[in-house]
């Protein structure tokens, strides 16, 4: 026998370095107890030395090395006989070497002999274990409810010591008695007993022990077992938000949690809203990141890959501990923390492309000319049919024969690039010893936009370190750093100009000069200067950088068993710098009059401006948490105190008149005079809070919790500075009751819970609202100055009257909920019903004009009630090799204004244009549009018969909007403001999300859709009306207007008039003609992924690798069939940015 012996020379433990650098071992302690079946009676080092290990997917050789490293053992074996590269996973705690070896070689027919620390492995003689006379051989497989094989499960023949453990594939073979019963058990799962009578092959599905299902959820100032929650808390894990093209965490959570509405308006940061709009101003939640208060911006820019979980505290019971800031919910984010063990590295990368979801469709130049003529003719029929353009001109537009004079300019096509690039990379490193654990997350995002010459970059660093200084003191420190930069090289075409500069204007002349001709004539400076395409070509630049850093130092002190005292100090610092340069630009040369230029289209004064902004947020928090538990009772109590100081400062400067456009520093600009400007701003607030929580659980089934917080804020006069916010909640786990035992086979968990509490809101109170102030600036921030004899004199003017009575907005929230888990976890669900009453709502509403007050102070005046259902259901199952999960959530919200104090109605402008209106009216919902109700358009027959009403002194024509009077009016009488009604609402009646994923072998497909129902959008001014300023571009939908040739009384747009016609004012009066259906269902993400099989990965030294393709917003189903070219998530008013859809390829790798 050619015995090749491989002898290992063993060093002493801890000094041993693994030779293999390609693989990175992952080991940590798990609480695992494994029944031993085969054991040696042994008394020696081999029995006293115990091992704990958790090696996943390692080779036999690695396992043996690990044992050698941790002990004095050394192995000798014949590499021919022993397949040392076989991959196994070993997860044990406090096991002897023999127990480990038994498990390692259970199926391998490998024997061993131990001589003190020397272990020799050898191949055993073939042992043909024959079934005995009354016995048989049974084969089986043990799986969990997800269909994954359970490795190392114990199979014992009942009543004997005969047993075996499952192998790496979850399989086992055992010789048993013909009528034997097998007991199958595994830690974390309920034991199962099965009869093998008449069977030779069995498949056993182990059901997770519900006690193991005790998922922990992050709650305010602590964590709680999910089953013990009495409040309404929804949580998301890291898996649920990664693999999305969104660089913004807020967008990533859109639609995933019922009752949490994320609105991603094109062009603006997404906003988040819990359970409907409670108030009439800002109703955004509080963001808490690793225990530290932060803002929406910080949250939105976290690297999704470094997030461990996100909890949404929806009811008063769970959020009252955050008191005055929690009225609109709390978002708790936990980032990944270090884990003891070898360094573990993962990489996530993605590259993709983004394109506009919907682009405005503008008319062609000949359509423009025809519509323009029509508008002019309708306004002044005596002027004839060709007041704007001759038929000959229209012909030139159409045939394109004179592109320098009569073009057809498609701004959308010229301005927007169809494909922008987005790429993201992130690395996570985690590891540590049992005394020191660390996590490092690095992220990088690079983004271009569908507008040219610009790029955005984001760098993320998240460093979390925790160290156990002693067994009673743990120090935690973390630094989170986010840097966002944005660079624009060139100017930015204005979205407004895309609509304002007509398509009859030449973008670029054939001689290469910028356009100077509009429909055959020299264009106005407004158009030639506003040429959106030309904006790209300037030497303007803009650079901005925002750095957001959160320094977090905390300690946990455990002086007594059950008592934890935690102190945390957080300093969040935001610094933002931006620099903007407007370069010299030549006037546009005149194409028609060579040698001359169009005045005012250039820039003769270059300028640079710079701003520096900083906000700092210092928070100290101290808590003491004591918990005590025995078999029957379990209680914990928490008391805490926190102090906050927020400060904002801004410094801005601008200089003009640089000698050349090459400077990048301001110092080269004008040193005095009008071209030398500086500005500044600052504000601060402070807050002191006390809070406490008491938690009691009886027999794991009756739960009770109470919270209270007291807040004092510098924003209030000291006489009414304190606010108190208590909450109570209770839960009952019916499924744990004795009488439910019979239902155990299908009912895993059933809990009902109820909560009531009160919260506050401070978001709508200005920092200095209780002061009556005098200012030297007007409400737009420009300096007020008069002059006596050419000497400027300061002007001080009341900026805002005081409201010393100013107080908190108060929210009381009642929540009833049911949580259930059915059919072995195949069906899980949560139902909640809530009533949220907001009172003393702060509203800086328009006070009567007669007071002369232009900037009204906030007052605690209104009451609003929100009611709604939230329902989430998840079904998961496995059929054959296909596993799938379907989950859906739906939330309804109805919203009523209960009281508006002394005001009947508060009517607000949609924007400064005074066109569209919102109304706040007692008994009605927030977000109601207020205007005239229409009944289509007047027909000629209506007019001829005198069946019309006048409005604003205008007698309507056929094709004008038929406003419906709300009073008893006779024909010919005037419609007035008294005829306005509520004509729509922009707050969804319900929102829903649908999540589906299917896995087959290594493939997975997931789709996530989100929709809203019962919402309207109101458009106004040049977004809605053609020729708004006189010559603005109409859109394609205007082609479907009313005309004399096509007198459709329900045409999408009334008869056209030019801007000066009183009929224009008549038709533009805010009515339901300007309101559109904004309901939609959108496939937010669609992802197809493939996980590389383990066998291929080992060659690469990787532990996991997944490739995927993902798309965002690829498909949209919309209710609006009128305009069709706006993104339904758009805000209304005037659209300033386009929505985005994207497609990306990504990879996730763990080493």
């Amino acid at each position, binding site marked *: 026998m050619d015995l090749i012996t491989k002898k290992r020379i063993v060093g002493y433990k801890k000094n041993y370095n693994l030779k293999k650098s390609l693989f990175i071992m992952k080991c940590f302690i798990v609480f695992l107890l494994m029944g031993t079946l085969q054991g040696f009676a042994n008394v020696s080092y081999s029995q006293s030395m115990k091992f704990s290990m958790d090696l996943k997917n390692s080779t036999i050789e690695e396992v043996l090395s690990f044992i050698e490293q941790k002990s004095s053992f050394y192995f000798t074996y014949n590499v021919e006989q022993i397949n040392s590269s076989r991959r196994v996973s070993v997860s044990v705690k406090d096991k002897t070497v023999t127990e480990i070896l038994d498990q390692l070689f259970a199926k391998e027919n490998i024997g061993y002999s131990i001589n003190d620390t020397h272990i020799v492995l050898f191949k055993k003689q073939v042992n043909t274990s024959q079934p005995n006379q009354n016995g048989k051989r049974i084969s089986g497989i043990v799986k969990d409810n997800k269909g994954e094989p359970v490795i190392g499960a114990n199979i014992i023949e009942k009543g004997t010591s005969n047993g075996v453990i499952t192998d790496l594939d979850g399989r086992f073979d055992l010789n048993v008695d013909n009528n034997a019963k097998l007991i199958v058990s595994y830690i974390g799962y309920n034991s199962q007993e099965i009869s093998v009578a008449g069977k030779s092959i069995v498949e056993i599905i182990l059901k997770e022990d519900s006690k193991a299902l005790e998922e922990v959820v992050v709650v305010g100032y602590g964590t709680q077992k999910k089953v013990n929650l009495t409040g309404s808390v929804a949580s998301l894990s890291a898996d649920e938000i990664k693999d999305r093209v969104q660089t913004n965490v807020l967008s990533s959570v859109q639609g995933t949690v019922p009752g949490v509405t994320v609105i991603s308006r094109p062009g603006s940061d997404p906003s988040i809203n819990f359970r409907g709009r409670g108030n009439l101003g800002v109703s955004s939640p509080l963001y808490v990141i690793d225990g530290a208060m932060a803002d929406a911006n910080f949250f939105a820019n976290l690297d999704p890959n470094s997030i461990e979980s996100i909890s949404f505290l929806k009811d008063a019971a769970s959020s009252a501990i955050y008191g005055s800031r929690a009225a609109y919910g709390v978002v708790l984010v936990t980032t990944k923390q270090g884990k003891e063990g070898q360094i573990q590295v993962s990489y996530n990368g993605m590259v993709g492309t983004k394109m506009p979801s919907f682009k405005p469709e503008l008319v062609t130049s000949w359509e423009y000319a025809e519509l323009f003529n029509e508008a002019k003719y309708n306004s002044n029929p005596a002027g004839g049919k060709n007041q704007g353009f001759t038929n000959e001109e229209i012909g030139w537009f159409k045939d394109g024969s004179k592109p320098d004079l009569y073009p057809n300019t498609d701004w959308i096509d010229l301005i927007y690039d169809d494909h922008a690039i987005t790429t993201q990379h992130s690395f996570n490193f985690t590891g540590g010893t049992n005394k020191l654990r660390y996590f490092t997350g690095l992220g990088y995002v690079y983004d271009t936009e569908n507008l040219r010459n610009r790029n955005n970059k984001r760098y993320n660093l998240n460093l979390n370190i925790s160290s156990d200084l002693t067994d009673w003191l743990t120090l935690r420190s973390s630094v989170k750093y986010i840097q966002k930069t944005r660079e624009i090289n060139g100017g930015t075409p204005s979205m407004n100009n895309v609509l304002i500069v007509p398509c009859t204007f030449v973008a670029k002349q054939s001689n290469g000069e910028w356009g100077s001709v509009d429909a055959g004539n020299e264009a106005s400076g407004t158009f030639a200067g506003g040429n959106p395409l030309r904006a790209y070509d300037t030497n303007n630049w803009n650079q901005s950088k925002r750095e957001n850093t959160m320094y977090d130092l905390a300690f946990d002190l455990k002086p007594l068993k059950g008592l934890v005292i935690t102190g945390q100090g957080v300093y969040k610092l935001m610094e933002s710098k931006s620099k903007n340069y407007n370069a010299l630009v030549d006037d546009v040369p005149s194409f028609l009059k060579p040698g001359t230029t169009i005045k005012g289209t250039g820039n003769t004064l270059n300028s640079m401006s710079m701003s520096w902004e900083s906000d700092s947020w210092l928070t100290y928090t101290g808590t003491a948490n004591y918990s005590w538990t025995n078999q029957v009772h379990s209680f914990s109590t928490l008391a805490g105190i926190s102090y906050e100081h927020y400060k904002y400062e801004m410094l801005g400067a601008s200089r003009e008149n640089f000698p050349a456009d090459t400077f990048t520093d301001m110092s080269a600009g004008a040193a005095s005079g009008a071209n030398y400007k500086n500005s500044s701003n600052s*504000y601060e607030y402070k807050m002191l809070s006390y809070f406490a929580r008491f938690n009691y659980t009886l027999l794991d089934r009756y739960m009770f919790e109470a919270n209270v917080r007291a807040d004092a804020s510098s924003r209030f006069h000291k006489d009414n500075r304190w606010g108190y916010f208590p909450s109570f909640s209770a839960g009952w786990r019916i499924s744990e009751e004795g009488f439910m035992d019979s239902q155990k086979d299908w009912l895993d968990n059933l809990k009902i819970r109820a909560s009531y509490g009160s919260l506050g809101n401070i978001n709508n109170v200005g920092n200095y609202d209780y002061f009556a102030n005098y200012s030297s600036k007007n409400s737009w921030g420009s300096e007020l100055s008069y002059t006596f*004899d050419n000497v400027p004199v300061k002007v001080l003017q009341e900026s805002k009257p005081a409201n010393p009575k100013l107080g908190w907005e108060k929210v009381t929230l009642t929540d009833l909920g049911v949580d259930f888990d059915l059919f072995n976890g195949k069906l899980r669900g949560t139902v909640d019903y809530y009533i949220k009453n907001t009172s003393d709502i702060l509203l800086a509403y328009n006070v009567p004009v007669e007071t002369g007050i232009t900037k009204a102070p906030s007052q605690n005046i209104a009451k609003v009630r929100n009611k709604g259902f939230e329902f989430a259901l998840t079904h998961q199952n496995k059929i054959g090799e296909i596993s799938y999960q379907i989950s859906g959530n739906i939330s309804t919200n109805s919203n009523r204004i209960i009281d508006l104090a002394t005001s009947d109605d508060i009517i607000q402008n949609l924007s400064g244009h005074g066109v569209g209106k919102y109304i706040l009216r007692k008994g009605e919902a927030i977000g109601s549009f207020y205007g005239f109700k229409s009944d289509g358009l007047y027909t000629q027959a209506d007019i001829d018969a005198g069946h019309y009403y006048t409005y604003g002194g205008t007698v309507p024509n056929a094709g004008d909007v038929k406003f419906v009077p709300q009073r008893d009016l006779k024909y010919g009488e005037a419609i007035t403001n008294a005829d306005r009604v509520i004509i729509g609402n922009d707050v969804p009646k319900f929102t829903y999300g649908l999540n589906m994923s299917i896995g087959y072998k290594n493939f997975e497909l997931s789709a996530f859709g989100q929709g809203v129902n019962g919402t309207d959008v109101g458009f106004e001014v040049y977004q809605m009306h053609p020729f708004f300023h006189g010559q603005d571009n109409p859109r394609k939908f205007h082609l479907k207007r009313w005309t004399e040739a096509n007198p459709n009384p329900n045409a999408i747009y009334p008869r056209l008039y030019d801007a000066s016609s009183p009929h224009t004012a008549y038709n533009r009066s805010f009515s339901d003609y300007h309101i559109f259906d904004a309901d939609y269902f959108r496939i937010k993400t669609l992802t197809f992924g493939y996980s590389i099989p383990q066998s291929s990965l080992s060659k690469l030294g990787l532990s996991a690798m997944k490739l995927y393709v993902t798309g965002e917003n690829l498909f949209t189903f919309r209710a609006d069939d009128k305009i069709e070219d706006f993104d339904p998530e758009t805000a209304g008013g005037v659209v300033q940015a386009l929505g985005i859809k994207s497609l990306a390829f990504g990879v996730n790798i763990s080493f």
Partner: protein
Amino acid sequence: MKTTFKYFIAILLVTGTFNACDLEVVPPSEISAENYWKTDKDAWYALNACYYNMPALDIWDEMCTDNAHSHKPWEGNFEFVQQNGVSTAAPYGNYTFESIRIANNFLEKVETCNMDEAIKNRMKAEARFFRAFAYLELNQYYGKVAIIEDLLAYDAPNVARNSVEEVRNYILKELAEVATILPEKYDGSYLNEAGRVTRYGALALRARAALYFGNFEEAEKSAKAVIESKQYALFRINSLDEAELKEAAEMELFIDFDKLGINRDKFIKGMFSYETLWQGANASPANPEYVLTREYMADANACDPYRYTYFIPLSMSIYHGYSSFEPMQDLIDAYWDIDGKTMRNTISVNDRKAAYQEIWNHAKNLSNEDYKAFSTSPELTNYNYISEFKNRDSRLYVTFMFPFKGWHGSAKGEFYYKWNPDLINKNGNESWTGFSYRKMVAVDPYDRFNNPDDYPTIRYAEVLLTYAEAHLMNKGYDEEVKKALNDIRDRCGMPNVPENLSKQEAIDFLRNERRIELAVEGHRYNDVRRYGSDYCKKYLNGPSTAPNGYVVINKQWDDRMMLMPIPTSAMDTNPLLRDDQNPGY
């Protein structure tokens, strides 16, 4: 030891964290009321706010009449006013009480200032002057309006409108009272700056108000007091500068001085006296014609943003021109013949169209040099179109830019006005009426956009016209009336007014003279309404055309336009207004 350490940390935590729990803050960039209203300086700052809010140029009102037009709907709803198209949702006017609150705030709070009582008393009179001024404006737009003399709280009960009578009496009473308190003039020192409202400023405003109200007795009384004070005179120049001399030479094309026996020197100096009273160093409280002055200067926060780029077309700008305000043919037609008493027979729209077509066909393709040569050559006068601009009132030539007319003293220097009719509906920064303003246009603009020149909110010429009209209504067309009007005529280089006119002839004559002298200053809007329904029906109806026949606006008059609608936004915040809207809305 270990336990001690633990407690040490715990104590450190609690004390260290919460020793700084001071929750007091103060506004960093504004002054809170508790720290204000202590000294005369505080009073001064606050009263400056009244001056800052002083009404000045009222060109917007002008565009609601037959004088002018704006083809830019975003500048305001003027076209709707001209076409009887305003509504509560598309209103016109300025329904604001901001200035009134600023005055009321001053009047209430100044009491706590520790300062000279006499000065405090005078400053209160100044604040009351501005409050009355604000009420006059409100009354002109809306008739009935709530009289508010207290500093209302934001949650004060809604207030109803007072009657027109009450508002008018209130304005006259207040102005009469403050006139007794305010000094005749100021010494220029701190708190006594020269540009402040004087007794005569108050009386001049009172004369204006009384005239508007049809109270000719009070109007005459107040105007007379101003005139008899001998503090004021019409502005006159004694010499011409280079640019004016150049233009004077070119005026030979337009005025047949010798043929008509016109005193060249008087006419030319009259023209430029009238033009330059608004310009440069002449624009100051020191100008004898300035009765009430809104002061401006070359400073980013203290200049007038309107009297430059808004007035001029882009084609004449050094940087920008918006042509937002454009005078109309109707106003041009109102200017006297050079005899100062006859009106030109208006030619038909088609004849003018043909005449303009003829001259434009010749001129449109000329180079800049050739255009200038043409505009300054006698050949110009061969064209029929130019005959409309021959031998007219001296003020016409300096109030407007009309086609081919040169202006040598403009901000750009020499400029020959060119009007391209093809740009109507195409180029919004050019005039669509055929004319642009010249009167009040900055000749030394600040920061390329703004006018740094002071503005005479009330000038002596208006006082003379008010006096003349009030006296005419009270006593008839007599020497007093003629004396006042001839002062105005003499200054602008025009002949005396007619010796004998019947009362009605005199009224018609005076109305037109007033329209010419005060053109562009915003009075026309108030004047036509007080002249009554018949006058409005005559002047504010029918098409206004450009020289090429283009209908600039088809004016529609309805008597509801006598008052503007209270806007929806105001009714929405004060329900008491809903049942008290002006008639017709």
